[in-house]
Each structure stands twice: as structure tokens, then as C-alpha cells.
């Protein structure tokens, strides 16, 4: 079980990077998980679309704007807010925050933590919100750890193996959408493991056009041997808000040397990544626009099923049409037309960031989708 999932999530919106770091550390030490820190209203708003925090610490004046809209969104969702601001309480810009618990910036991190604890205890006695978070917890618990689920698709793991993988994947870091984990030209710094959300590998041309070469879904990780390289030859970025773990190269080396079943699973996973890249190359080189999109949707269904993130043919697809275009080597116009065509044929429904496949046999037929390259044995239900 992932113990981090039981710690309350605190949204931290703070324009000053140093203050953000101090507060973030203090919150972590006090047993909270931190959503952020976010320096802009836009990033914080995007993050709460993905995950509802239990509490929020807001600096009123963020880098892009006074975050009144964020305050409203949080209040609509019933999230208690602690204001931590350098502005005076009678400043007109703080109008949307009057009457809330307030600490003048810079407050001692311990004071922030103490006041939050008080607010959290009041919330917990409220009832409904606690109930909501319990059901979310149960769902996450039933799904289990995606890293373990993924490797168990390839190999049989012992209890000891599972305990090690659980430990490795515990210290997750939350990242907003469209954040670079590592850029082309950077020195590799560990292996990224995705626990929640969607990450991609991509390259950008001088003219700004971008090709996405791979999606990393929950349970997927970067290259095992990336530490052998001096510099990255591509960029890895989040697509949606994500929970990611950075695994040190030494940890991977230890797994590969002393835990044969885990090592076998990781090697299988690498082979599947390569096979998937070949399939994507076939997609962009030899399939029509509608076929490419249909193929991608079929593949995501199978891959997300493995880690328990589908619900009878439906899954979260937190991608824009532009990102779909960048993935499939199509223009935005052709992606739009292909989606319309698939809708017209009654094969898919795509709304509010969720894709529902209404006619899987037909979609598979259009894409000529065979899941053999994912090497799931008899686990591939699609």
C-alpha cells in the first residue's frame, strides 16, 4: 500500500521560490503531501482540475495575477484556504480573500503548519469531505501500485520483490501539466517512474514544431541505462498533472544485480518500449489519419487496462488536439476531422478529457490493432 496516499494533500501557491521551498519542506516534514508549489494562478488552476487538495496555502499575488479565481475555485470545491501574503489585509487586491485564516508573509513555516493542522482538524469533523477522500483512497488501494502491476504483467514477483518496488515508488513528486522533467542536452539525472498522469518523450524542431515519440503512463519508466549517456538526446515532459518518482541509477543497478525477477520484468518493459516505438513508426509512416488515431486509442486502452485505469472501455485522456497531432504526425485539422469521423461512425465519445470506446471491435479493425507488440501474453483483453 502506498502510505503517501493517506497524507492530506496541500495546495501550495507561492510566487517566491525560496519561500515556496521552505514551506514545501516544512509541510512534507509535518506529514502533508504538497500539490505544487505553483508560482502562477494558471498552473495551480490546472492542477486542481486533476486532483482535489484537502487544504490550500495561497500567496494572493502570484506571478501571473492576483489569484482571486483560484480562491473562488477552491471555495467552490470546499477546500479550506490559509492566506499567506505580503499584502495588507485591507489592500483592495485581497478583496476575494477577506475573512479567511491569514498569516503575514514571511511567516515561520512552523506557524503555517500549526494553523493548517487546526484547519485540518476542523475539516475532518465536517464529515462529507473526509468521506470523499476515503472513497478515493479505497479506489487507489484496489488499483494498487501501477509499477508493481505493470511488472507483474511480465513476471511473477515475490512478496519481497513487491515490498522493494513499493518502497522505491513511495517518494513521489507532484508536477503540473506541461512541465519538463529533463531536456535534450541535459545530463541524465536518474530514471523517471510515472505513478500518476501522462508523461511524454519528444523532440522540438528549430521552427517550433514538435514530435512526441512515446507516452509514459502510470507504471512506465524511462531508460534503465540512461546513466551511461552523457547528455539526453530528447526531452521528457509531463502532459497532464503527474506524480513522478526519480529513481537513482544505483538503485536500478541494485535491482538488476540482486533481484532477478524484477530485473527480468524491467528488461521486458524496455523491450516493450522499443516494440511500441516501432509500432508508432509504422503508425506515422504507413497509416491514414483515422487509422493512426484509432490505433493510438486502442493501444492506450490496453496499456491502461494493465494498470487498472480503465472503466469498461473508458479512460482519462488528458490530451489536447494539438498534442494528439504532435503524437500522430498529423495537422491539427486532420486530427479534428478524424475525431469527427470516429464520432460519426459511433465508435468513440470524447468529452471532458475522457475517451469512451463505444465499438472496440470496429475501432480495432480500422486500426488493424494487434496487441502482440505489448507482449502481455493472455492479459491483453482488447
Amino acid at each position: 500500500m502506498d502510505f503517501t496516499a493517506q497524507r492530506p494533500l496541500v495546495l501550495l501557491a507561492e510566487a517566491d521560490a525560496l519561500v515556496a521551498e521552505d514551506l514545501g519542506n516544512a509541510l512534507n516534514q509535518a506529514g502533508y503531501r504538497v500539490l505544487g508549489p505553483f508560482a502562477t494562478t494558471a498552473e495551480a488552476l490546472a492542477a486542481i482540475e486533476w486532483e482535489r487538495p484537502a487544504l490550500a496555502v495561497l500567496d494572493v499575488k502570484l506571478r501571473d495575477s492576483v489569484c482571486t479565481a483560484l480562491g473562488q475555485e477552491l471555495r467552490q470545491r470546499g477546500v479550506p484556504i490559509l492566506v499567506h501574503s505580503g499584502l495588507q489585509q485591507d489592500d483592495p487586491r485581497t478583496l476575494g480573500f477577506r475573512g479567511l485564516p491569514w498569516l503575514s508573509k514571511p511567516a515561520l513555516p512552523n506557524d503555517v503548519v500549526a494553523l493548517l493542522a487546526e484547519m485540518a482538524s476542523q475539516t475532518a469533523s465536517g464529515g462529507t469531505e473526509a468521506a470523499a477522500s476515503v472513497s478515493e483512497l479505497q479506489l487507489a488501494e484496489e488499483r494498487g501500485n501501477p509499477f508493481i502491476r505493470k511488472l507483474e504483467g511480465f513476471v511473477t514477483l515475490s512478496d519481497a520483490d513487491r515490498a522493494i518496488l513499493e518502497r522505491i515508488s513511495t517518494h513521489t513528486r507532484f508536477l503540473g501539466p506541461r512541465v519538463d522533467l529533463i531536456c535534450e542536452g541535459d545530463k541524465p539525472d536518474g530514471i523517471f517512474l510515472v505513478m500518476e498522469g501522462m508523461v511524454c518523450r519528444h523532440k522540438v524542431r528549430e521552427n517550433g514544431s514538435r514530435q512526441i515519440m512515446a507516452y509514459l503512463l502510470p507504471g512506465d519508466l524511462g531508460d534503465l541505462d540512461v546513466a551511461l549517456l552523457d547528455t539526453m538526446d530528447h526531452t521528457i515532459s509531463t502532459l497532464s498533472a503527474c506524480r513522478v518518482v526519480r529513481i537513482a541509477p544505483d538503485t536500478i543497478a541494485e535491482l538488476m544485480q540482486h533481484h532477478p525477477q524484477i530485473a527480468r520484468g524491467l528488461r521486458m518493459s524496455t523491450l516493450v518500449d522499443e516494440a511500441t516505438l516501432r509500432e508508432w513508426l509504422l503508425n506515422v509512416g504507413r497509416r491514414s489519419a483515422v487509422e493512426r488515431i484509432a490505433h493510438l486509442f486502442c493501444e492506450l486502452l490496453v496499456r491502461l487496462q494493465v494498470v487498472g485505469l480503465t472503466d469498461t472501455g473508458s479512460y482519462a485522456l488528458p490530451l489536447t488536439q494539438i498534442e494528439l497531432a504532435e503524437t500522430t504526425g498529423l495537422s491539427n485539422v486532420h486530427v479534428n476531422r478524424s475525431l469527427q469521423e470516429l464520432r460519426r461512425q459511433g465508435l468513440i465519445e470524447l468529452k471532458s478529457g475522457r475517451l469512451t470506446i463505444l465499438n472496440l471491435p470496429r475501432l480495432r479493425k480500422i486500426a488493424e490493432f494487434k496487441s502482440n507488440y505489448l507482449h502481455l501474453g493472455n492479459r491483453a483483453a482488447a
Partner: protein
Amino acid sequence: MSLHLQPIQIATGSNDTKSHLVFADGFLVAVLVQLSDEFEDEAGWWFLEAAFGRVNDFRAPTFPNLEETQEWITSQLSS
């Protein structure tokens, strides 16, 4: 060099049917299609559906009106 536009209907397999063939000095250089209402932000914009020679651009750009489209085509031809 002068551009000449010839209106035409095109079967894109979508609701985007209004189109222009674009000729430069008598040669066909591009096919433009006006985007339908299914494109929320870009409805009514012009899309470079097909283009030839120097006008061909892998990014397949869109333009808010025919004037800007023609300026872009002219600049591509003279590049």
C-alpha cells in the same frame, strides 16, 4: 507573379467543403479549404489542404482570411 483563386467544392470527408484552387502564373500551387463550424476557434479560417513545390509546408498552417493566405503563398514562392 500573380495569384488567381478559383472557387471549388472539395470532398475532404468532413464538413469542410468550401475550397479554392490557387494558381500562380497559371500553375496550380495550393488547395485551400475553409474550416467548418466543427473547428471552434478556427471556424472560417483557411487551411492549406494541399500545396506543391515551394508552397508545400509540412506544418500545414491555417490563416484567418484569404488575404493573409495569399501573402503567405507569395512569400513562400519568392523565398
